């Protein structure tokens, strides 16, 4: 058999081994064209395109998650540990950071990114010669996201910085959903808030690596039952580390600073 090249080029036809019939292989269509063709073939009797269903797994916070991973890599590369501090407004995040910068920040270089809806009051309160601070005003957004943190960090001189504190917007709900690229999430609960906050706002407490029970110096005056609060924290976040402290009296502050030292930032 001497097939002529123009009718049976090997790359165009296949010869069936038994019947000897020649067949052309189907051409591969580009994905959009294939979709169009299958939609046309599947079109309903009225000529309208048939409804197709696709199963997906598209994460809704994909953009934030990618940026958070980028932040995490950046922090790791610089050998610094980032902590994301979240709590209700007024639970003592800024006061704790002031004291931390004054005591711990003199030996270990720290930096702060602080978010609020408006004003740079916290940024001004935290300003120290030995610790760079960036204030982010979210303009109404109820949480910090990874891109805001990236921009805040960009404006800081991180030379020699070992610990980065990210003071989130005061809010016990929304910050739970947004990974900022931190290594440690710290959730604060103050004695002025009520012992059952962890039960009322469980997602954020569940996401905590460390829970700080703050303002314990005034717990008795408030009739705040510390043991009940501790029990509630334990039930929601059984594996989180728990420290009870008062930034004003100093109770428990040493334990918090020991915790920071234990994070052992490299480099």
């Amino acid at each position, binding site marked *: 058999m001497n097939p002529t090249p123009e009718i049976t080029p090997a790359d165009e036809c296949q010869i069936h081994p038994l019947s000897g019939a020649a067949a052309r292989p189907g051409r591969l269509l580009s994905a959009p064209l294939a979709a169009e063709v299958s939609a046309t073939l599947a079109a309903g009797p009225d000529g309208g*395109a048939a409804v197709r*269903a696709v199963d997906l797994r598209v994460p809704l916070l994909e953009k934030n998650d990618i940026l958070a991973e980028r932040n995490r890599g950046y922090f790791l590369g610089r050998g610094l540990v980032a902590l994301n501090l979240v709590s209700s407004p007024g639970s003592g995040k800024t006061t704790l950071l002031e004291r931390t910068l004054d005591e711990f920040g003199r030996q270990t270089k720290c930096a702060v990114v602080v978010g609020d809806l408006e004003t740079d009051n916290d940024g001004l309160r935290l300003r120290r010669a030995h610790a760079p601070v960036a204030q982010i005003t979210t303009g109404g957004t109820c949480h910090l996201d990874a891109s805001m943190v990236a921009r805040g960090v960009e404006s800081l001189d991180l030379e020699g910085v070992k610990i980065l504190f990210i003071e989130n917007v005061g809010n016990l709900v*929304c910050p739970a*959903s947004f990974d900022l690229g931190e290594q440690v999430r710290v959730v604060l609960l103050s004695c002025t808030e009520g012992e059952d906050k962890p039960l009322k706002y469980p*997602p954020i407490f569940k996401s905590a690596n460390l829970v700080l029970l703050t303002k314990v110096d005034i717990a008795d005056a408030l009739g705040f039952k510390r043991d009940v609060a501790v029990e509630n924290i334990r039930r929601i976040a059984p594996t989180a580390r728990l420290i009870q402290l008062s930034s004003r009296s100093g109770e428990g502050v040493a334990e918090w600073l020991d915790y920071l030292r234990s994070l052992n930032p490299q480099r």
Partner: protein
Amino acid sequence: MHELGIMESAVDAALREARAHQASRIHRMVLRIGTLSGVEPDSLRFAFDVVTEGTAAAGAQLEVESVPARAWCAACAQEFGVESGFIYVCPHCGRLSGEVRQGHEMELSRLEMS
């Protein structure tokens, strides 16, 4: 409070998928939302109409599927489902678990389009 932004990214993703499939209309969208995601399904539904207005997803049906939490008990070396609430007690040994295996989901899981 940020459900509007989350819905925006859900609708963006859906419109992107629809374009990739040469579809001009989205009929139904299914989201899977974990009980630990911190996102309120009712707020999502509220945001849906606002966000889809004037897009290929306008008038589409939205289904929000709740994903229950699952936790891991290290003592029993097994996973257990959490029926309700946020206190995860192992049904076999009664110990508290802090290791969440499922419940953080926030994803677009199904799209019906033409």
